[in-house]
């Protein structure tokens, strides 16, 4: 008989477990909680010291970022942006500066603005903009997140922009292994701004104030990224030097932590919901009176969290 077996004791409500499956009792829930907490803590520690073994899988390429950005613009009836080597160098300098000075912001702690980096690269802009992203896993998720955020979407879909530059770089920010993506937009002539204003009178791009070159720090970026496998990028990416060195980041750890937790959540919480459902059904059928939480409420709650966890993305925008 299943009911009298160990399986019955663990998963079915019966007299041996006080009419509540052992796997759903408070002591069992507490053990799950502590085990998951310890596992999370342990994986974090291992991941920090050995990100090649236990880390976050990443594959972000400038060619893909450009393609997805231009697809979004074309879907909105806008002209595609041209990949600009000076803006890419400005983005590379900005990304390096963020790692060197350990900050996550549009302006550096020493007061440098994005426009300083653009001017330093030799790009003479009339209008410019910057989007930042960190810790996304693919080029698609980066552009999707930009499009989902109203202010970043405004930048991607600003008609006045003509050029774009990117830098993708891996390094350590605030003690954490981080993949940064810097996207810099620009237009060099007032003609494009006027054309854009004529086409779309509701959008009034505000030209960014020009910064004097004397305020610009002229650092040579240090290439931190070493993970890039750039064989196929070499065929598609048109630039050389600094801009090319920041054109792709690929990390493939032995265990992808993000995927691991998603799948564990799906399996573990799914099984818990299954036991809760069977328990609720048997208790209702037998009309058992007992003191316990409401199984259907637990199922609703855990189901919504499984959904959120599957779609959760640890990437940040600025």
């Amino acid at each position: 008989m299943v009911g009298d077996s160990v399986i019955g004791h663990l998963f079915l409500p019966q007299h041996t477990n006080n009419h509540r499956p052992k796997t759903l009792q408070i002591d069992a829930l507490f053990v799950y909680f502590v085990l998951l907490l310890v596992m999370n803590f342990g994986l974090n520690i291992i991941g920090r010291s050995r990100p090649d073994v236990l880390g976050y899988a990443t594959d972000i390429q400038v060619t893909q970022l450009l393609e997805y950005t231009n697809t979004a613009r074309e879907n909105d009836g806008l002209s595609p942006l041209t990949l600009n080597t000076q803006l890419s160098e400005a983005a590379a300098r900005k990304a390096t500066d963020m790692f060197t000075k350990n900050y996550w912001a549009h302006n550096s702690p020493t007061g440098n603005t994005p426009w300083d980096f653009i001017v330093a690269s030799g790009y003479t802009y009339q209008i410019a903009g910057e989007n930042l992203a960190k810790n996304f896993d693919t080029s698609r998720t980066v552009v999707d997140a930009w499009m989902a955020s109203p202010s970043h979407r405004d930048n991607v879909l600003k008609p006045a922009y003509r050029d774009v530059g990117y830098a993708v770089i891996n390094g350590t920010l605030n003690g954490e292994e981080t993949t940064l993506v810097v996207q810099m937009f620009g237009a060099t002539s007032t003609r494009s701004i006027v054309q854009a204003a004529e086409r779309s009178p509701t959008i009034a791009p505000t030209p960014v104030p020009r910064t004097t070159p004397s305020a610009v720090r002229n650092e040579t970026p240090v290439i931190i990224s070493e993970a890039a496998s750039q064989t196929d990028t070499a065929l598609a990416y048109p630039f050389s030097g600094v801009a090319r060195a920041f054109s792709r980041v690929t990390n493939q750890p032995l265990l992808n932590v993000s995927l691991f937790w998603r799948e564990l959540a799906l399996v573990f919480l799914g099984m818990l919901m299954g036991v809760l459902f069977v328990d609720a059904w048997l208790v209702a059928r037998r009309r058992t009176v007992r003191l316990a939480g409401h199984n259907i409420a637990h199922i609703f709650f855990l189901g919504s969290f499984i959904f959120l966890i599957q779609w959760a993305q640890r990437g940040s925008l600025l």
Partner: protein
Amino acid sequence: MRIHIVHFSILALILIIGSLTFFSLAGNPQLRIVTGIAMATAYVVWGIFHHAASGDLHLRVVIEYVLVGAIALVFLLAVLG
């Protein structure tokens, strides 16, 4: 029965509003974590009110809701952290 329908409608509303808020915060994992914590807290509070109204509120029941919420939160923190 009617009180159950009202209570579960409120729970559904909490979970739907929480999920919509969560999805609207793309690119901001810190605020997503705050949203998750708020959802779990609201769930525990809902459980307390629900069982108090049903006349079977007990410390064991409260602990059960707290642990279910905490387990779900550990997974969310692991993915977003």
